[in-house]
């Protein structure tokens, strides 16, 4: 019974969106209903995560059609972790949006669009069918186009055009990849694909498919060399939107890489995962170098997203249980801290009117509390103990040492050192020194609840890392042994059907 309720993660946001469209954009219920539904889904997502940890993978078959024929939702630990994370950020962003979203944006359907975005994101995490992954991608993308353009100033429109064109190209290639997959494998259900791909491990076309999907998901996740679009579109929209985009949207691409490269494309790790490793190193390095050269808080933060996606891809490239667990730990940490930093930059923007380092300074004398929140989140991002960033980087880099990949570990360490450098640059430019920032009459206090929620989470993870580690370890366990996923979806497999828990041998 409780399993059936997992559909709420997809249905409830879309219902809420429809109702919010219907009741009219001026209603006070826009805000109240949004907060109530997001809080409800947040609580349920935490419950769902615990449920999946205790009872194993939950599979929902729409209309009770047996897999692989029907449409299915699959909630394994990885999916539910991502959903819980999404709802946490959604809660913080909604708390931040209530006082900051202006009248005009609300009247142009800010809240309904946000719920459609949530539906797309949750659906993409939960679906067990690669074509539905495409559909949910499109749902979340079209909501994100609208949210990005909302407000229609010249900067926003220009960046939205770039974002739309780029994503449409990626979508067309995604469709081509799906067509090719269906032609070669005759199925689009991910568990069924995994069985068939394992049986045809020698087929050279598999690597071609892997590269097509890597291009698509890599574009969305902003990995090297496809990250060029990222810093722009995250800059002009309001901070709540930037926080959600920066925290969650690129991670949907990372999730898709995780799913496909642990479940489907494990036929030739010496090529595919080796390539991921090389890309991760370039992503870490170029992202952080881009961040150093920027002079605006939001732009620095956007470049850091790129660099940190490199760490996540590093984990999947190493492809050992510990590395996967570390990469997931890193995703959780990164999403929380990155969204917190974007919200803080939004609070700075609300109270001063700018996020440029050259125009700001001395905010520490105005609000020690906001400065303390920033400092905790920034040090966590750079990976200083005892915050969440330290443990996540430690686990991944330790896994790299075990595999003897010292070069990648060195690049990872260099990346975190440069991250610390650019975080201190923000600290010096925005919070330290004489108070010379412009003032706007906006109150700071109503902006803080969402930020406090996220920052206390990063401290909490830092103090009790074993709690989160148990979750990501369970998720990594399911990812390393795809039989668990396949049998949950398709039922018990006949022995000798060729599904091996292939672990990567160290080289």
């Amino acid at each position, binding site marked *: 019974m409780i399993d059936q309720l997992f559909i709420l993660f997809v249905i409830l946001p879309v219902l809420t969106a429809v109702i919010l469209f219907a009741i009219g954009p001026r209603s006070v219920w826009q805000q109240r209903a949004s907060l109530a539904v997001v809080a409800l889904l947040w609580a349920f997502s935490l419950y769902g995560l615990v449920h999946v940890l205790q009872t194993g993978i939950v599979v929902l078959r729409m209309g009770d059609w047996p897999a692989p024929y029907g449409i299915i939702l699959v909630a394994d630990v990885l999916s539910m972790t991502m959903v819980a994370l999404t709802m946490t950020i959604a809660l913080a962003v909604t708390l931040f949006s209530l006082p900051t979203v202006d009248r005009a944006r609300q009247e142009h359907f800010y809240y309904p669009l946000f719920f459609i975005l949530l539906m797309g994101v949750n659906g993409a995490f939960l679906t067990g069918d690669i*074509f539905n992954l*495409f*559909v949910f991608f*499109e749902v979340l*993308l*079209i909501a994100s*186009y*609208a949210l990005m*353009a909302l407000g*229609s*100033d*010249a900067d926003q*429109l*220009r960046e*939205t*055009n770039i974002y*739309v*064109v780029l994503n*449409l*190209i990626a*979508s*067309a*290639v995604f*469709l*081509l990849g*799906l*067509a*090719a997959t*269906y*032609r070669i494998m005759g199925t*689009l259900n991910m568990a069924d694909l995994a069985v068939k791909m394992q049986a045809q491990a020698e087929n050279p076309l598999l690597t071609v498919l892997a590269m097509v999907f890597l291009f698509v998901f890599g574009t969305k996740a902003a990995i090297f060399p496809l990250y060029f679009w990222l810093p722009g579109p995250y800059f002009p929209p309001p901070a709540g939107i930037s926080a959600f985009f920066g925290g969650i949207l690129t991670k949907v691409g990372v999730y898709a890489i995780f799913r496909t490269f642990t479940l489907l494309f494990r036929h030739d790790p010496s090529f595919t995962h080796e390539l991921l490793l090389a890309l991760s190193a370039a992503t870490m390095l170029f992202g952080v170098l881009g961040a150093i050269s920027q002079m605006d808080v939001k732009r620095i933060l956007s470049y850091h997203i790129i660099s940190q996606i490199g760490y996540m891809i590093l984990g999947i490239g190493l492809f050992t249980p510990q590395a996967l667990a570390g990469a997931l730990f890193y995703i959780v940490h990164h999403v929380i801290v990155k969204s917190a930093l974007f919200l803080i930059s939004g609070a700075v923007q609300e109270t001063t009117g700018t996020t440029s380092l050259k125009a700001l300074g001395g905010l520490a004398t105005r609000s020690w509390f906001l400065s303390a929140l920033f400092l905790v989140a920034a040090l966590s991002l750079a990976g200083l103990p005892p915050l969440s960033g330290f443990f996540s980087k430690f686990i991944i880099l330790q896994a790299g040492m075990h595999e003897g990949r010292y070069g990648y570990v060195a690049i990872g360490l260099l990346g975190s050192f440069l991250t610390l450098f650019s975080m201190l640059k923000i600290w010096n430019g925005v919070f330290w020194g004489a108070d010379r920032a412009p003032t706007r009459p906006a109150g700071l206090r109503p902006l803080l609840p969402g930020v406090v929620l996220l920052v206390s989470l990063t401290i909490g993870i830092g103090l009790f890392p074993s709690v989160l580690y148990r979750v990501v370890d369970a998720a990594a366990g399911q990812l390393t042994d795809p039989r668990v996923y396949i049998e949950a979806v398709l039922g018990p497999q006949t022995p000798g059907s060729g599904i091996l828990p292939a672990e990567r041998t160290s080289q």
Partner: protein
Amino acid sequence: MELLMIAVIGILFGCGTYLLLQAHLLQIIVGLALFSHGANLALMVSGGLKRGGPPLLTIGAPYADPLPQALILTAIVISFGVTAFALVLAFLTKQVCVSNDVDELAGG
């Protein structure tokens, strides 16, 4: 027949790429529309092309695979919606930024 369709897909993608490299936003959007047409055709070919086989199980042996058709329908609806959005966005950009030329937009 399938080879012909594959050639058509290639031509659509080729023209789309040419249009994507143009300066005007409208040309870029038409290029993207051609991309999605090409991708939809590819989905159609993915099920195998044959004549005279309706997608009904009850009529016996030569029936067509209904899945690609369902997939194309979904993909067409999505690309229709997104193309409409892109056109409105281009219109709005023209009004706000007074230009639809990509080079001028990038400079401003």
